[in-house]
């Protein structure tokens, strides 16, 4: 048998879609308020079908390699601009053993200083904190730096004739902003954030105007798996029928759409308010409506919905959502499409960020490795809401830190239905981590279409750690 792949085979690989089901684009095209261009486009590429080697999830040496390569060269979401609204405000962002003081040094200038005193190395600000500083003063011996990073004071300077203040400026990582997010990159030679995202993905993010939202709820939890497994649990809707059976009656899971953009961004669109192809013939339109699960249903109150004869659950949901979310969040949604109101848009910006620009599922996820254990990771869920029409921006929510044994439903403000979904997702990953370690098979096998984001993500990992040519 020949190992040569013919052009015909290459064309066919990844071309199959869920049989007998409308495509995501078909469903959206039938909506009353039409979706914008970024919704109504496709960008799938077949990227191979070989197994994903599993040492990357279990080998401590691989985790060290990631810290020395991948995490030092990529653009990472460090905080939202609203976390540091005033000049002098700072927010401490950590990745592994690295730590950065993200600070607003002028009204429109944000910097990221390596969070360590240049005397004997003490962190200038404790990890996980925010505040405002007129200077950054070390709590050990009192050396201090101005907001612009220049060295302000060496206590007992007479004893440090070898310290030239001009050479003791705080080192910086690069900072760029998009949609109200502050991204940092330790690599001075990295491409710009715009180049890193690529023109198409950047145009999508620009279209969302996420700078006009604020953090309404912020929940963090440590997960019992490598950071990449945590991310991959959220990159496909393939698991919905088995993991979230309560969601399937109102989610087009097997006919979700998957797209990849350049090297660092990928997405799915998973339609809601339509039945799973797995359940065709078993669920009525009223059932769909009754089982619709929302990320932010607190906006909806106790209203009950009914599908009229001949109508669809999706159309009813779109109509009612628009009015109710407008009222609950005091915003104008008249021009927002049905799809943006209803559907789950999940974008990954490699390596640590998920953006969900929809209205009913308005989340941001962030994932990082646990600094002390490569078999654990830190997961954060942030819910964004539009800034009220009066323009008064509420303070961003304080993070709620769940213990390892706590349910997401225990976080105050979390929708119970959505919290239960997150519990189901995060219960899977502990078993997966242990199973990968227990397995006789040293590779993960992926679907060509529904799991393309995982392959896309892992290929980026491989490029950064040097397993694969850039």
């Amino acid at each position: 048998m020949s190992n040569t792949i013919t052009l015909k085979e290459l064309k066919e690989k990844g071309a199959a879609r869920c049989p007998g089901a409308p495509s995501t684009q078909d469903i959206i095209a039938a909506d009353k308020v039409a979706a914008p261009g970024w919704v109504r486009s496709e960008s799938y590429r077949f990227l191979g079908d070989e197994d994903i080697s599993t040492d990357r999830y279990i080998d401590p040496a691989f985790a060290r390699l990631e810290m020395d390569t991948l995490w030092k060269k990529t653009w990472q979401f460090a905080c939202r601009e609203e976390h540091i609204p005033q000049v002098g405000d700072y927010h401490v962002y950590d990745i592994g053993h690295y730590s950065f003081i993200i600070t607003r040094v002028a009204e429109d200038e944000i910097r990221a200083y390596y969070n360590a005193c240049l005397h004997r190395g003490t962190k200038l600000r404790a990890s996980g904190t925010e505040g405002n500083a007129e200077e950054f003063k070390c709590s050990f011996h009192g050396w201090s730096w101005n907001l612009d990073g220049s060295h302000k004071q060496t206590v007992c300077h007479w004893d440090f004739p070898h310290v030239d203040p001009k050479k003791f400026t705080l080192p910086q990582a690069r900072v760029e902003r998009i949609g109200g997010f502050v991204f940092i990159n330790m690599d001075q030679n990295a491409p710009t954030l715009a180049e890193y995202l690529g023109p198409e993905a950047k145009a999508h993010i620009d279209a969302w105007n996420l700078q006009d939202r604020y953090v309404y709820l912020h929940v963090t939890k440590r997960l019992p798996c490598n950071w990449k497994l945590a991310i991959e649990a959220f990159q496909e809707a393939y698991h919905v029928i088995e993991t979230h059976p309560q969601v399937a009656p109102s989610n087009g899971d097997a006919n979700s759409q998957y797209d990849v953009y350049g090297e660092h961004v990928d997405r799915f669109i998973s339609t809601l308010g339509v039945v799973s192809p797995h359940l065709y013939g078993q669920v009525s339109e009223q059932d769909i409506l009754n089982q619709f699960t929302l990320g932010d249903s607190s906006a909806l109150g106790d209203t009950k919905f009914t599908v009229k004869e001949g109508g669809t659950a999706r159309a009813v949901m779109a109509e009612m959502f628009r009015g109710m979310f407008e009222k609950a969040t005091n915003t104008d949604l008249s021009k927002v499409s049905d799809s943006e109101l209803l559907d789950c848009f999940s974008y990954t910006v490699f390596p640590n960020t998920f953006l969900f620009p929809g209205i009913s599922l308005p989340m941001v996820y962030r994932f990082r490795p646990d600094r002390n254990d490569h078999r654990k990771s830190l997961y954060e869920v942030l819910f964004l809401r539009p800034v009220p029409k009066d323009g008064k921006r509420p303070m961003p929510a304080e993070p709620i830190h769940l213990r390892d044994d706590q349910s997401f439903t225990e976080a105050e403000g979390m929708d119970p239905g959505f919290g239960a979904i997150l519990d189901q997702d995060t219960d899977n990953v502990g078993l997966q981590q242990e199973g990968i370690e227990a397995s006789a098979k040293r590779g993960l096998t992926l679907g060509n279409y529904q799991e393309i984001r995982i392959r896309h993500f892992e290929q980026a990992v491989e490029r950064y750690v040097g397993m694969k040519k850039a």
Partner: protein
Amino acid sequence: MSTEANAAAAATFTPVLKLADLPANTKKAVQVGARCILVCNNNDKLFAISNVCSHNEKPLERGRMGNGWIACPVHGARFDLATGAALNLPAKLPVATYEVRVSGDDIEVLV
């Protein structure tokens, strides 16, 4: 009666500021006897805490208020506005808190 109980019995609500002079998310330091107290309006809730950081005894009044906390501007120790508890290093000890109420147009603190 213990000394502490005597002190508690002697405590009285003292008007320190006009409510109108402390808009949402602002703070003001006031002197009541020997104590320097920071009165905070945090998202329209009033708090009163000692204005002296428990870590290095510097004033907190120029620090940033977040949702329910204030950060010392000098080294970044944060304190819970309701309980006074230290939330992060370099502070470990709490700062004093005082009961606060509104009486007519006045903000009063129990000292």
